[in-house]
């Protein structure tokens, strides 16, 4: 038996989530698909759409962003970006799935879902973002790198939800680039590279491990970039599925990393 509640405050949401097998319904773009495919059948759905505290985009003077959990991909994609961090998020948001999914899918939902081939986890790790959470017993800030624990697995405790995502501006004058290799447009990534580039590069790689891989302070020469890519390839654990072999992703990673960093540098 499934029941549905749509609280208007966070406290009401926490109370509702205390029930057995309760799940948050944010944009529904992942959850409802899984329900339709028979993969999940929560006993209670707690809709977050009426909670104003989860909405809103706040920009700092330096270009850092606080994105309410219910901010949609379309809203992020349309941001006037004043920093490398914001630019990276906007680029990732633009290539999530399809227009209708971007209209309703939320950053909070995407982050809590933690699909390793999704776009936000990679971008957030590269940007060194933090996830702000809330629960009946209080909230915390978790670095993105620590937040994503595994395949569809996060650091969220039962009853704890994503309240907002904090995206640092990144290095002053920094540039950002998000590159995604997929079989068809709108698809999940076979391999994705999120890069913020200033004096050095900081990058995250998606699609080739249960969580994004991260490296920073990479020097900007071809040799250093390729070496960093090869090291990340060594750390990777790509899935062996019918899309590609693990060797392919490891093989392509270094050059794709180098190319993404170069593309970031060319952006004005």
């Amino acid at each position, binding site marked *: 038996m499934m029941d549905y509640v749509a609280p208007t405050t966070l406290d009401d949401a926490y109370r509702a989530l205390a029930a057995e097998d309760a799940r948050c319904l944010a944009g529904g773009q992942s959850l409802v698909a899984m329900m339709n495919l028979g993969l999940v059948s929560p006993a209670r759905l707690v809709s977050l759409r009426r909670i104003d505290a989860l909405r809103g985009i706040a920009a700092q003077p330096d270009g850092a962003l606080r994105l309410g959990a219910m901010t949609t991909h379309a809203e992020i994609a349309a941001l006037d970006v004043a920093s490398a961090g914001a630019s990276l998020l906007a680029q990732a948001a633009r290539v999530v799935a399809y227009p209708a999914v971007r209209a309703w899918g939320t950053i909070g939902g995407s982050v809590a879902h933690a699909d390793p081939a999704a776009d936000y986890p990679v971008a957030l790790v590269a940007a060194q973002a933090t996830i702000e959470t809330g629960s009946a017993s209080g909230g915390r800030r978790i670095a993105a790198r620590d937040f994503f624990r595994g395949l569809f697995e996060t650091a969220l405790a039962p009853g704890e939800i994503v309240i907002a995502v904090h995206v640092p501006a990144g290095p002053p004058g920094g540039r950002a680039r998000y590159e995604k290799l997929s079989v068809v447009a709108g698809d*999940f990534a076979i391999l994705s590279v999120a890069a913020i580039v200033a004096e050095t590069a900081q990058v995250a790689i998606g699609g080739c491990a249960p969580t994004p891989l991260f490296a920073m302070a990479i020097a900007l020469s071809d040799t250093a970039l390729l070496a960093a890519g090869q090291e990340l390839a060594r750390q990777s654990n790509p899935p062996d599925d019918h899309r590609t*072999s693990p060797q*392919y992703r490891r093989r392509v990673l270094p050059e794709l990393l180098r190319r993404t960093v170069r593309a970031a540098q060319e952006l004005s």
Partner: protein
Amino acid sequence: MSIGTSPPRLEAGDKATGRAQYADDVTRPGMLYAALLTSPHAHAKILRYRTDAARAMPGVKAIVTGADLDGRRYGGLVKDETMVAYGKVRYVGEIVAAVAATDPGTANAAAAAIEIDYEPLPAVLSIDDALASGAPILHDEFAAYVKTVPGGGHGNVVFESSVEEGDVERAFAECDVVVEGAWRTQAQHHAYLEPNGCLADVDAEGRITIYATCQSVHHVQQRVADELGEPMARIRAVATRVGGAFGGKHASHIHSIAAWLARASRRPVKLVLSRMQDFEVQRSRHPARIWMKTGARRDGTIVARDVRITIDGGAYADESPPVLAFALLMSRGPYRIANVRARGQAVYTNKLRAGSFRGFGNPQATFAGESQIDELAARLDLHPLELRLKNAMRPNDTAFGGQPVPSCVLAQCLTRVRDAQQGAPLLAPRPGTRRGVGFSALSHISGLMGTAASVQLRTDGSIALSTGCVDIGQGSDTVMVQICADAFRVPIERVSYAPQDSDASPYNWKTAGSRSTYMTGRAVAAAAIEMRDRMFEHAAAMFECAAADLELRPGGAIGVKGVPKTVSFKDVAMRSLFHRGGPLAASHGFVFDGPGFDPKRASIHQLAFANLGVYTFGAHCVEVDVDEVTGKVEVRRAWCAHDVGRAINPTSCEGQIQGGFVQGMGYALTEAMHWNDSGWLTTVTFADYKIPGVLDAPPEIHAIVLEDPDPTHPVGAKGIGEPSLVGAAPAIANAIHNAVGARVRTLPMTPERVLDATDATR
């Protein structure tokens, strides 16, 4: 004149407004919902069914399992299928039971509550495993199956065929250059946007009507009558609007299952497959292995080709025999090669059955053949186009198998795409990619089997046209009306077109084989001429002249040649209905009457076809950009030249060409069904099975429609449904080679395969 113009499709308005009724849109009061239980084993004996728990559920009104069947088998040329699994399951996903209940949730719960005891058997999932000595045999009783055409099946071999002309061994010895290679192609899925489904209704006498998305109401009627053990008179099939088919929606067990449940429950039953079920339950394109050897003289004359094709037919024969036959017949390619030997087998494996899919064996054969032509050209130091033009078939040549081919514009197709590509403004390649241009040439057929059309004259002088040709989205409704309207010299608004209903529609084999415009269009034109002659008899009496003096006047009138006075169609109708002669109606039916194979030229052994159709030709040229880092291929532009005989509705021809090209591009680059080691199909959603979206398809696909009228058709038309898919993959493969010097021999040509092939050249 309507032919040659492109009036909007008759049903476009309904489709644009959401009014068009597809199978799942049809409902009936008291309708039940069906749910299916499918096999979790790739190969297993069925020992016992326990349905008590399911039957006891409130709302469950009917259940069917293999225990209800008598074991008779149905199917295509090898009758190896039963409505639901009987005695054994042979693939994961095979339907083993079905339930009809008052709501979908109850139906699903009841289906899940049916317990089946299986004894798993070893399974074979590949051609090699199926052919290995000691391999588990899928169809132990194969020898006892009815086979309407002998195919020499044995073990896990369903069918074996060969076609041979000339003397290949001697001819190869005379060649200066010989190339040899092997290609592999994958299982592609039709991925029509509308899943398969139907509604079976039942009347007080137990007579059943199936409203189905299908390619032939006559096929559905026949299959359901067979599988229910009912006379055909008690089964009626009506076509709903069809949301795409491509070969995947002809006769299917789901029609019989819904009908069975309706008969048992005495209530209407809706059975619509989910997308996942549709992938798992229906049919795919045949994966194939093609080995090919081609030899030429130094001057570029191709003199010999030797081909072996093995197609993986999955668990049931379905259309494996004719697909094999067609692949062999098309493996010579559209060339004047005097010595050709093509041999092949269709093999059973414990996977979803493979069957008909746009191209029907030709995409597989042509992927190999047109790739090899490019390789041969390189060895001969000839431009690939030059080699093709040198050996291209010409009018009055014979096809492989010996049929005369009176018309052939292949050379023009090739030069048109070459010129179009060369004349097009240069598209800058994307940074980090290499540009390549590739060509392919192809032939295909339009024809096959029987069809009929009937026309009636209404009291107001308008025309009622009826055929059994189901429009599966390719535009045949509109084309038939255009042909009919032109035959009577009336605007198309004066012709109404009846829906396809087995109670009323003249027989048509099915919408397949690129045959509708050629075959049913021919019947329409002939029926119209017969009706016209009867109308002329009345008009001759009214004018007191000879019928030979009469002519049709535009707008629905008849006059004496050279004399302005006319009588209207309405006048004729009035006379016939109320005065003399009776209601005017005419019909025309025929079965494809072209020449069969020529035993003086071709040695044919166990071929599933006796007769084919008229030949059409085409050529493709594509530009690709290959990403140097990832190997991903982007098709930037395509030119597709096709001879359609006569373009009845040119816009529809273009749309078919463009759509077929993109479906062929998916076959070439991104689509593949994948089974895991336990025989489970893992690509069962559109997230896993990747068909091209608008951003993947090239923004420019130039359809070049050539018209080389067919002399056997009153309007000269041939067909266009399939050929444009056939040319895509080899043209793309050749373009990839042109870009990066790498030959990819396995479909789909994924980024990884392209990189691996590029590596192999270094």
